[in-house]
């Protein structure tokens, strides 16, 4: 049905290339518009240069129930600076003049529905967005949303949790394009110092039913932790840790350079695996 081939998608291409090179992906999350979209437009090309393979770009939502305090506050800052879906699309279009790093939007159903799913699929692909992850949209509730997004050329990324049952795990992997996101622990987004013990077994279970790359996230903050997680999966996501740095440096000239520097360390750790 799809009018676009998956192989045209930057996100899909990126994981194909990494697989050929035998490398792991470093995925960096930031919230669009935190502290404002001007900073986001500088930050993404800088993260690209720092070696980040994929950008997960949060679209702020007023009630982010799956997020911990760091990303909740980032959403509040971004909404306070007037960030909305049209603004995020315009920023990505501007970024595309300098950077072709794959960009995956990460958000909740409400802002996308308010914009209109059909319209979003068309405008997002045109702006240069590669995929979408909706935290509160399990595939059985989608009523054709995923299909419409994919028809527009966007990759759909699903989440798998530690308590997801076997049959459901393969269904979620099958609905995913580009990669599937393994939420490696119970809880909301946020930094932790350890890694869960069942990680290896869980990733192996996903791999048994699917060939889609698996990225691991939730609670990863240090290069050492990122490297450990990267051993088990095809990529690692770091979010709250970078968002805390943005919070700390908001308003300072050094923000972009500082965040990019940390991203470079994390990317190097992941790429060394």
């Amino acid at each position, binding site marked *: 049905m799809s009018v676009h081939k998956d192989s045209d998608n930057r996100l899909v291409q990126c994981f194909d290339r990494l697989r050929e090179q035998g490398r792991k992906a470093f995925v960096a999350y930031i919230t669009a518009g935190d502290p404002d979209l001007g900073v986001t437009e500088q930050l993404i090309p800088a993260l690209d240069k720092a070696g980040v393979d994929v950008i997960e770009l949060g679209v702020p939502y*007023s009630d982010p129930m799956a997020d911990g305090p760091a990303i909740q506050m980032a959403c509040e800052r971004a909404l306070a600076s007037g960030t909305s879906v049209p603004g995020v699309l315009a920023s990505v279009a501007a970024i595309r003049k300098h950077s072709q790093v794959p960009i995956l939007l990460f958000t909740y159903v409400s802002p996308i529905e308010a914009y209109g799913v059909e319209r979003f699929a068309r405008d997002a692909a045109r702006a240069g967005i590669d995929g979408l992850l909706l935290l509160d949209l*399990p595939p059985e509730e989608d009523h054709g949303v995923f299909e419409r997004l994919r028809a527009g050329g966007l990759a759909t990324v699903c989440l798998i949790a530690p308590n*997801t049952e076997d049959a459901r795990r393969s269904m979620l992997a099958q609905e995913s394009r580009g990669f599937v996101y393994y939420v490696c622990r119970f809880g909301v987004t946020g930094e932790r110092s350890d890694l869960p013990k069942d990680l290896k077994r869980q990733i192996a279970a996903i791999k048994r039913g699917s060939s889609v790359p698996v990225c691991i996230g939730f609670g990863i903050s240090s290069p050492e932790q990122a490297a450990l997680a990267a051993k088990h999966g095809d990529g690692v996501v770091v979010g709250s840790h970078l968002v805390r740095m943005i919070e700390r440096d908001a308003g300072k000239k050094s923000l972009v350079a500082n965040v990019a520097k940390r991203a470079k360390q994390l990317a190097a750790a992941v790429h060394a695996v």
Partner: protein
Amino acid sequence: MSTKNASSAAGRFGEFGGRYVPETLIPALDQLADAHRRLKRDADFQKRFKGLLKDYVGRPSPLSFAARLSGKFKRRIWLKREDLNHTGAHKINNALGQALMTSYLGKKRIIAETGAGQHGVATATACALLGLECRIYMGKEDMRRQLPNVYRMRLLGAEVVGVESGTKTLKDAVNEALRDWVTNVKTTHYILGSALGPHPFPTMVRDFQSVIGREAKVQIKRAEGRLPDALIACVGGGSNAIGLFHPFIKDTAVAMVGVEAGGNGTALGEHAARFDGGSVGVFQGTRSFVLQNRDGQVEGTHSVSAGLDYPSVGPEHAWLYATKRARYLRCSDDQALEGFHLLAEYEGIIPAMETAHAFGVLPQILKKVPKDGIVIVNVSGRGDKDVAEAARLEGVEL
């Protein structure tokens, strides 16, 4: 759409309802839906639940004839007295049902959100009764407005956690409870307080609250020899209203009227009238009418009553509204205060400020009821908790 399509087997009421949640909660909701289905038919569970409702809550609650109000409005007005339940509101029906269910699930820890504090008090009560660990999330703004209830919950052995995020009210307490649940889902059950949120909550809470309507149906038939012309209830999340309405849905001659919080204006942020100022969207796990801006961001609400101060409404109400089976009106803060006085002065019952909304627009609703027609108004809770705030609003020094 026919009323037959109200089937909530898949958690849908027409296009409304569903299960819009992060993946980690799916297994817990599956388990809960299973338990709900199973325990509905489990003789032992039902016997224990009915026993608690009778001997601990004090059910059946009376259906009182409001003689002076009836004389004033030339209609036969009956009051379903949920205010006489233990803990003073309908909330205990659901809190006890879910707490009992938790023991059957083998979980020992309970979390809940609360707005006005009534659901928090009911949950803390049920946990004390059944020996369960209890943590209540409450917006910091609501804690300030409902200080006595905060102390009550602590007296009952619950831990009350103030929520500082967002608007610091009910919706933020729900977010925080959901975050706790995602983290501790293996050991914890979340007792949602209204017919809201992801499936199976709207159906399960409605089932536990339907005792209100089932009793009322028997009581009115006995007293009047027929069904009423209209049912009237206030609607926040909508659990007292759906509890009264649900057993009458197929009795299409019985009109159903829900009353929402009209606050102090019609602009977004000044009220909690979802059917009047909201649009269809997804919020906190369910598809329903939501007070949101054009970007899909949920706006703050305002109401004189903390219990109605919520930006969305239960999905079954959304379906009753969309199919025109029920009507929904708004009642302003000022009208609610009039309703508060009306019931107190005419019937000697000080209602909860939530309940007062149903009486605030009673004259308007009764215009559509034939002279000498019969109505039942749900007195969802008693107003002791609101006396100080009402006095403050009226400039009375206590």
